[in-house]
């Protein structure tokens, strides 16, 4: 019996030690790997102080973080939203003495993550990604919070939606597609995902042209296969998500929901060029939210990190590769834009919910 005990104890200890050694090599690797980043970071910071003096510097005096700042991404790790945010956070971290970490709290169309942060301590260490999805969910009556329940920190990412058809589709232009939808109301299969921006984009096209599509719901991952197999006629998604299929010649892009063309794809018409108006709320822009009542100086500090990262060339080129653009806005601008977006969406959503 006693022997048995002793053995089990050694096992317990060795299990703990295994964990420790594991963690030990894990951290060792992390440190090793961090070096190159730190170095490239230093090169970058050489030019930062000059910009700091532009006026943003006074805001950094008041609040200095003592531990890592966490950005909650309320969507899946590795997804279309998560990756650009991680890239951007990496560069934000380079301008701060502390790390900027990403945590994914997924669920209920992103609301679980937002609620988690809303209830968090408003100390500036806990932020959440803001996407236009929440304005939509609020308009649809699904989300029980609005932009007023959180503090805006600033926008940092922008990207545009794109409408694609299969390369062998008969529709060469957006007009062809609209024409076809007019002739056969409610039969053209338009893929969208419930409660996401592309759905509103499709509704926008319906409203502007007075046509109806057969709105087909797609799972997040299955959009491309559905069009590749021609089970649907067209779908709308972020440009970054469809770019590779345009490059490979599988898809044709008929329009970009933007007023400026995408770099390298100038031949794809923008909605602006096609004569559409008032589609600004359909931009896929991402910002940061802090819990209500967060220290104004902490917000200013983080806003300043966004500003510096958005001006970093490496950051911009890395984001461009996946068809995102870094952007910057002050927290006041962010708040004001959110206000218009929320009202635009509730207008657009009127009549969806029974």
């Amino acid at each position: 019996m006693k022997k048995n005990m002793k053995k089990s104890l050694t096992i317990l200890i060795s299990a703990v030690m295994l964990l420790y050694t594991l963690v030990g090599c894990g951290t060792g690797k992390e440190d090793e790997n961090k070096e190159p980043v730190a170095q490239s970071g230093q090169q970058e910071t050489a030019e930062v102080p000059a910009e700091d003096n532009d006026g943003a510097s006074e805001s950094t005096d008041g609040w200095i973080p003592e531990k890592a700042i966490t950005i909650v991404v309320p969507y899946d790790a590795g997804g279309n939203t998560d990756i650009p945010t991680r890239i951007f956070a990496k560069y934000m971290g380079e301008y701060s003495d502390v790390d900027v970490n990403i945590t994914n709290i997924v669920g209920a169309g992103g609301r679980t993550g937002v609620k988690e942060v809303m209830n968090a301590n408003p100390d500036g260490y806990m932020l959440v990604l803001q996407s236009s999805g929440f304005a939509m969910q609020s308009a649809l009556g699904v989300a029980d919070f609005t932009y007023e329940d959180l503090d805006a920190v600033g926008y940092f990412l922008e990207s545009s939606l794109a409408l694609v058809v299969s390369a062998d589709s008969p529709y060469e232009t957006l007009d062809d597609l609209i024409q076809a939808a007019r002739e056969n109301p409610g039969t053209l299969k338009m893929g969208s995902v419930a409660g996401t921006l592309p759905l509103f984009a499709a509704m926008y096209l319906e409203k502007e042209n007075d046509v109806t599509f057969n709105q087909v719901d797609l799972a997040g991952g299955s959009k491309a296969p559905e069009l590749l197999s021609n089970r649907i006629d067209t779908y709308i998604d972020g440009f970054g998500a469809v770019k590779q299929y345009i490059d490979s010649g599988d898809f044709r892009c008929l329009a970009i929901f933007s007023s400026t063309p995408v770099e390298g794809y100038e031949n794809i018409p923008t909605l602006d060029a096609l004569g559409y108006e008032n589609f600004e709320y359909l931009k896929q822009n991402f910002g940061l939210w802090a819990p209500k009542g967060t220290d104004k100086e902490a917000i200013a500090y983080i806003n300043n990190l966004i500003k510096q990262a958005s001006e970093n060339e490496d950051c911009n080129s890395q984001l461009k590769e996946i068809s995102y653009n870094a952007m910057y806005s002050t927290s006041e601008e962010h708040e004001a834009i959110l206000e218009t977006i929320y009202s635009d969406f509730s207008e657009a959503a009127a009549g969806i919910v029974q």
Partner: protein
Amino acid sequence: MGELIFLGILAIIGVIMFGMSFGFQTSLLDKSGGPALYPRIVIVVLVIFLVVRCVMIIRSQEELKKKFHFLEILQGSRLIYLLLLLGYAVIIKPLGFVISSVIFAVIAVTFLHKKQYGTFITGKKAAVLYPIMILSIVALYYVFTNYFNVLLPGGILDF
């Protein structure tokens, strides 16, 4: 007999859930039959099989006499362990992972040892076992919160 009660409870829950399905919000855009259609189909299928099962039980003397296993988890040492777990779940948020786990582990280990060997852990064995348990729990907390990014509740000893 017990199984019939179990099936009856399932049927009642099914009927209630069927009724609740009339209150779901619907979207005007939704042409998929609505959010209520699928749960209703599942409930109908469930009830059909419940009825089949009931008929099977009633027609067989053997099945009718069979003991239904449920109450024994609410008896004796099983109930105590279940309550221990429940208590653990209740105190973990306010007291934090470390303290609540130590409390749970000490009580559970002492109780189970008594149950298994009929004696309490005493002397040298206790002097080694309990401290190691506490150290392991602290180590677990440290590893999970710092390296696995798991936000275990810090509680009153927020470290």
